[in-house]
């Protein structure tokens, strides 16, 4: 793809349903991922988020190498299960959303 000539990929990362509380209550993040020879997978993004965006209590966001149960990941408004989950290769301009399921009413 054309991105290989770029220095980085730009993606939109969003947290909702309470997941944003672990990120200083900031819901929307514009993220620049510097390009190296290995593709940016969701697996790799989770590590990056944990090291760069997460403000507190990492165990409430990631467990082992994936998100903790109860968080849904969306890639461009579709369930990540439809695109390969952890192995999905992130493209420039992708919108990745982490939704904590609400329990309340």
């Amino acid at each position, binding site marked *: 793809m054309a991105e290989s000539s770029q220095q980085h990929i730009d993606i939109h990362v969003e947290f*909702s*349903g*309470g997941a944003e509380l672990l990120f200083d209550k900031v819901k929307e993040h514009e993220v620049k991922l510097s390009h190296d020879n290995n593709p940016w997978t969701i697996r790799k993004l989770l590590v990056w988020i944990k090291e760069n965006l997460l403000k507190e209590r990492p*165990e*409430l966001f990631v*467990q082992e190498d994936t998100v*903790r*149960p*109860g*968080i*849904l990941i*969306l890639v461009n*408004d*579709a*369930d990540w*299960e*439809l695109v390969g989950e952890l192995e999905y290769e992130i493209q420039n301009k992708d919108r990745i959303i982490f*939704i*904590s*399921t*609400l*329990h*309340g*009413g």
Partner: protein
Amino acid sequence: DKRKVNELCNKDIRRYSRQLILPEIGVKGQLALINSSVLLVGAGGLGCPSAIYLAAAGVGHIGVVDYDEIELDNLHRQVLHTEERLGKSKCKSVADSIHCADICQRIFSSHKDNVATRYLLNDACVLAGKPLVSASALRFEGQLTVYNHEGGPCYRCLFPRPPPPETVTNCSDGGVLGVVPGIMGNLQALEAIKIITGLKASYVQKLLLYDGLYGSFRSIKLRARKKDCSVCGETPTVTGLIDYESFCGAGPSDKCMLLHIL
């Protein structure tokens, strides 16, 4: 009182005339509503508006399950309950307000953990072959989806493992603006009405995300039913109700979830 109604009486025709003239509803849809049964689990911020609009639309049999008593801090969102009924059963309060069946038994051993309740209801609906219109609301946000209907996923397809108990925020801890569950409860009632009348449900294999602070509605495409799901899959391992409390672990207590079983 479960006899099937085959024709509308004159009073029904007048009462429901404004929705009867909708070609999508018509006499057939109204009869389907009158002959339908909906179980509301939870008579709180979601259950109250759902109950109001399901009853107003003519749903013939509404059951309500709730073990809680009315408290003062419920009233900003649980709009069928009143100050005069403080301390009374929520179930009875709904039943008195909308003339529905009052099924207030404590049917769940784990009634205080809503994650466990969610798995229990999911499994019960899958085993009974019923759709589940599920919604939740917290702070300014709401979520809604229909489980176990027309090839869409069940709750376990999406969440094979329960969330860690410490990650579950409830209304008491997180707060909620009362009209947000009002909006979500109304949307639940509309999904139920569409399913009953044979119209296409809008949120099968879709998750509606509402953020009331920004007025934004977003509809997300979910996975289909999973072949390897432990309850709705091809070789299920969950073939009867299990011990949901030990499956989910002890958790924070809150019971303001609502679900419909049609």
